[in-house]
């Protein structure tokens, strides 16, 4: 069993065979940095718990394609902030399947949004002048058809 410590001090136990879905953890184990426990200062407890839920499910139900598909679909039904936290964790922990799933989810969200909605979701300030924005939209008329 591997012990993982989140940034806010929570402790989690997980089977090594499951944990190595994270390439980051896998390398730490190989480099013998995992004697007592592995500190993960970039991931908080709530997010780490979710990530572990994902990799546990993907380890135990490895061959059940349909089951994993519906699990994944439900898994990403979280609020925006949590989704972003999971993406960052998946990136830091280098878990390809989870990273693909969450990035694709955000990409699918963006697809249907207007410019204003994208700004709202990502909290981006509009730094164009009205003239600049009008010209840019005109140059990209093909995108607004």
């Amino acid at each position: 069993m591997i012990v993982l410590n989140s940034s806010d001090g929570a402790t989690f136990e997980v089977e090594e065979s499951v944990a190595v879905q994270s390439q980051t953890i896998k390398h730490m184990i190989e480099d013998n940095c995992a004697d007592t426990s592995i500190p993960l200062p970039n991931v908080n407890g709530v997010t780490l718990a979710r990530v572990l839920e994902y990799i546990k499910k993907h380890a135990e139900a490895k061959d059940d394609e349909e089951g994993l598909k519906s699990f994944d679909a439900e898994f990403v039904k979280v609020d925006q902030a949590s989704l972003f936290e999971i993406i960052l964790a998946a990136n830091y922990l280098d878990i390809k399947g989870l990273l693909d799933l969450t990035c694709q989810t955000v990409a699918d969200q963006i697809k249907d949004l207007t410019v204003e909605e994208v700004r709202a979701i990502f909290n981006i300030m509009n730094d164009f002048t009205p003239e600049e924005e009008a010209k840019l939209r005109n140059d990209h008329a093909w995108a607004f058809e």
Partner: protein
Amino acid sequence: MESEITLTMSLKIDASGEMPVAMADSAPDFPQELIINIFSRVQAKSIGKCRCVSKPWRSLLSDPLFIKAHLNLHLHHPQKHILISIPHSPPSYNLSAVTFTTTSGSSNNDGFLEKLTLLENQLCFAEIVGSCNGLVLVLTFKGSNTPTMYLMNPTTRELVKFQPSPLVWDDAETSYGFGYDSSSDDYKIVTLSHDWLLDKTESYPAFVDVFSWRTGTWRRIGCFPYVPSSHSGVFLNGSIHWLALSKIDGLCVIIALDTSCEQFQQLPWPETDNTPHNGSRKLVVLGGCLGMVVVQSRHHVDVWMMKEYGVGESWTKFIVTTPKNASVWGPICLLGGDDVVLQMGGKNFVVHNLKERTMRDMVIAGIRDKFRRGVIGFSESLVSPIFNSQQWRATLPEDDFENSC
């Protein structure tokens, strides 16, 4: 990449209109590679919109490195877009793009048509030559054998005009090809020219001229020791492929020009192909494989596919036959694993399932008029056909266009 971009997060405003409590105070920043990972998956139109979000976003989403990452992801999607030219008070043509929708959608349509306002009513005898990386090469002939060349991105509607090779004789028979050289990140247009009048003794070979998009110039790279067919080449796996006839025994061959080293090689012919070599044939790319269409009659085509590139034994054939009241022109692209989109003489597309050997008409919203043969599949991409260079500037068609054909 030059600009730094950070993504800060906040909670989405929920349906009740109330702002949730935890706003940006604990918002982490996304590293650039994550932003690229997410946005590479977004379709081109949404990227166009997102460029209008802010200046850093415009910078990042216009950066050539991002465009490349986006292209790499989208090149592997099954080809869902095709370009067709519709006659409009001939001899001019209008270009339209047909997008096939995935069958899991809610609508009953198999696809929809979008009219492109590129070169409206200005294309005379347009020939769609080829496509790669989302760019399409279109030639127009204004009453002479000498074409004007347009390189366009049908997704972003960008367009650039080139002059043909100045080295080609006026009366020469020509065929063309378009491809990409990954070793120098350059697009190349190839002209094969062959002068029948002078070639009574067959001592004049076909010449090969190559245009480099980066330099904006034509070079004659040598001779083509075959008789080229009139069809345009198809680009696949770093080479442009043409059908040609051997001068020695008159047999049909498949010739590939590697766009990087600019060398020709011959590809293996399907061994069990018994059709006479002077029959009507055409190359096509289907599902990432080289395909050869043999037109046996208006109601019967054989389609060969080289399942493993370069391996002669991997040629497999499927046959398409139609009843007497319909005629088939040939396959356009694969949709998913087993569905082939066929262009039927007339004005429709049919999807043919290879496993079940069934055919059904496709319902494409917006198709009303007949369209020409020579449709081409293209990928969605953000690649710009306009190359900014100190030495050479692209001529935009507005500069010197004549309105009459």
